[in-house]
């Protein structure tokens, strides 16, 4: 409700007479006391859910919430905690720790870690089981730093048609950080992986209320020992030069460059070498994608039992327009900078292009600093719309393996691997 005085008060009249000739005071007086036309309406709240159509917003629609060590982020769920990063935090190549998205699977999330007792264990099918304290990880090994994007497998799930159950993320279940820690390979070599070993399993401090042996009890992920990504993995005790926030995996988390975040075990405490394939729920049933191009399939094929699945792996190439974000109009003729980010789990981004005519013509953009193959890469390009109207800006990236974002959507029952070209409608106003 707008509460306004609708008539000219006596004091207002005197003020006007006394201020005759002073434009500024007249402005104030007009603004404060006269309501000739309809006044601005109060801000409305975002809708509380979207669907059955796709979520039309860049982010998910939940309320803001303040969690420990975090700025207000968008709440998906509170127990276990899932929080999305608002769009404007992606203006820079590195995502601030306090704004970095959060995704847990089970509700037993640590509120405290006592570093006097905590140790990282390397165990299982090894010659010499080992355990490292945080000071040992920091001092016994030469620290290595690398920039890498952490993206949730279900990022942008709310775009799928038909909608699928699961975390209804907008585009903000991703972030880029400079991770510092110990190469996983050095820890494995020190413990000595026995011949005949197949996989290495990762377990953090997270646990749930479900019975033993179920996915609701423990969250476990494994990688094949033959997978070359193991040589790039890091056991990180720093994120952007700071300790990790508890919700992002303090004291250490696994970094699997180019791979989806499901493998980036938080509060990593057990590294377990296996001599048989990991058949726990989170490998055998969860986080699997159709073994098809882009992981694409149809509800009919799933129903018919035709879909063979494989564990999800690398991040497909993606790019985003971050600003302008359509929250304001742009005056016609004004030259504005279009800015955004791009990344790929298959190699460095070499090209980002923008279109303002629904993808008919594409113009090149200038790429920002190269922080490494697995980092966000910023891009920018100046843009002017000379006539008022609605413009659909589209952005697409290409990586060094020549993967380019397609314009076709993706659908699979898990809601994974979404990477089509994104569009943003921008309103250009009459500049007078």
């Amino acid at each position, binding site marked *: *409700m*707008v*509460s*306004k005085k609708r008539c000219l008060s006596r004091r207002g009249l005197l003020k006007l007479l006394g201020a005759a000739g002073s434009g500024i005071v007249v*402005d*104030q007086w*007009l*603004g*404060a006391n*006269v309501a*000739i*036309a309809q*006044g*601005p309406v*109060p*801000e*409305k709240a975002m809708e*509380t*859910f*979207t*669907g*059955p159509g796709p*979520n039309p917003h860049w982010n998910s629609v*939940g*309320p803001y919430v*303040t*969690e*420990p*060590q975090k700025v*207000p982020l968008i*709440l*998906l*769920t*509170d*127990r276990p905690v899932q929080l999305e990063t608002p769009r404007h935090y992606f203006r820079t190549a590195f995502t601030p720790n306090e704004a970095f998205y959060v995704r847990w699977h*089970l*509700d037993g999330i640590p*509120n*405290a*870690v*006592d*570093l*006097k007792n905590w140790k990282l264990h390397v165990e299982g099918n090894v010659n010499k089981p080992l355990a490292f304290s945080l000071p040992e990880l920091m001092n016994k090994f030469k620290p290595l730093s690398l920039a890498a994007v952490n993206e949730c497998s279900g990022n942008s799930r709310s775009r799928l048609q038909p*909608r699928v*159950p699961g*975390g*209804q993320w907008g585009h903000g279940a991703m972030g880029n950080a400079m991770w510092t820690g110990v190469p996983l390979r050095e820890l494995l070599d020190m413990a000595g992986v026995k011949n005949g070993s197949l996989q290495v399993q990762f377990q953090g401090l997270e646990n*749930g*209320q*479900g*019975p033993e042996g*179920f*996915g*609701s*009890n423990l969250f476990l992920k494994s990688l094949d020992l033959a997978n070359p990504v193991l040589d790039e993995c890091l056991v990180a005790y720093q994120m952007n030069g700071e*300790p990790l926030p508890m*919700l992002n995996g303090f*004291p250490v988390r696994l970094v699997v460059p180019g791979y989806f975040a499901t493998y980036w075990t938080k509060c990593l405490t057990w590294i377990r070498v296996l001599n048989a394939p990991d058949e726990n*729920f989170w490998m055998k*049933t969860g986080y699997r994608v159709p073994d098809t191009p882009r992981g694409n399939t149809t509800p009919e094929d799933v129903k018919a039992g035709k879909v063979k699945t494989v564990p999800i792996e690398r991040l497909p190439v993606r790019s985003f327009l971050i600003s302008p974000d359509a929250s304001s109009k742009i005056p016609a003729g004004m030259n504005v900078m279009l800015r955004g980010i791009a990344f790929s789990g298959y190699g460095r981004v070499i090209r980002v292009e923008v279109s303002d005519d629904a993808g008919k013509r594409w113009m090149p953009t200038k790429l920002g600093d190269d922080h490494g193959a697995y980092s966000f890469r910023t891009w920018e390009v100046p843009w002017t719309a000379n006539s008022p109207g609605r413009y659909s800006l589209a952005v697409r990236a290409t990586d060094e393996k020549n993967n380019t974002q397609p314009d076709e959507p993706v659908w699979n029952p898990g809601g994974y691997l979404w990477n089509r070209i994104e569009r943003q409608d921008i309103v250009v106003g009459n500049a007078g």
Partner: protein
Amino acid sequence: MRNRLRAIFLVMGSLVIAVGLLYADLKKGYYSPAQLGSVQQAAPIELLPDSNYEVAAFPVPAVDLAPGDGLQDVQIYCNTCHSPRYITMQPPLPAAMWESEVNKMNKTFGAGIPEENARKIFLYLQAHYTAENRKR
């Protein structure tokens, strides 16, 4: 007399137009009682130089569940492993999918919800959270 009247109307009319134009340019000073609510800052927590690294409890804001039969079963059983915000966060889903979601909790995740209560839960979800009937 007629001319004077005309002049008055003219002056008044231009005044209204002038004020209107000014106003359109200078619309300002409008406030309204808060509609969106505010997000309170957390106070800094006391930190000690010991080996224990602790954060506050993770907040669970109240969730707006549809009233109706089965709500109590939702609040008891679903809440064991996760807060019922997992329901309101979903998009509207087809009725059959709600049934399979509840079955997944029992079969895949071992939730151990008695059959009768599981049935009440999916009937509740089907009555309030499909594209045809979802309101909140």
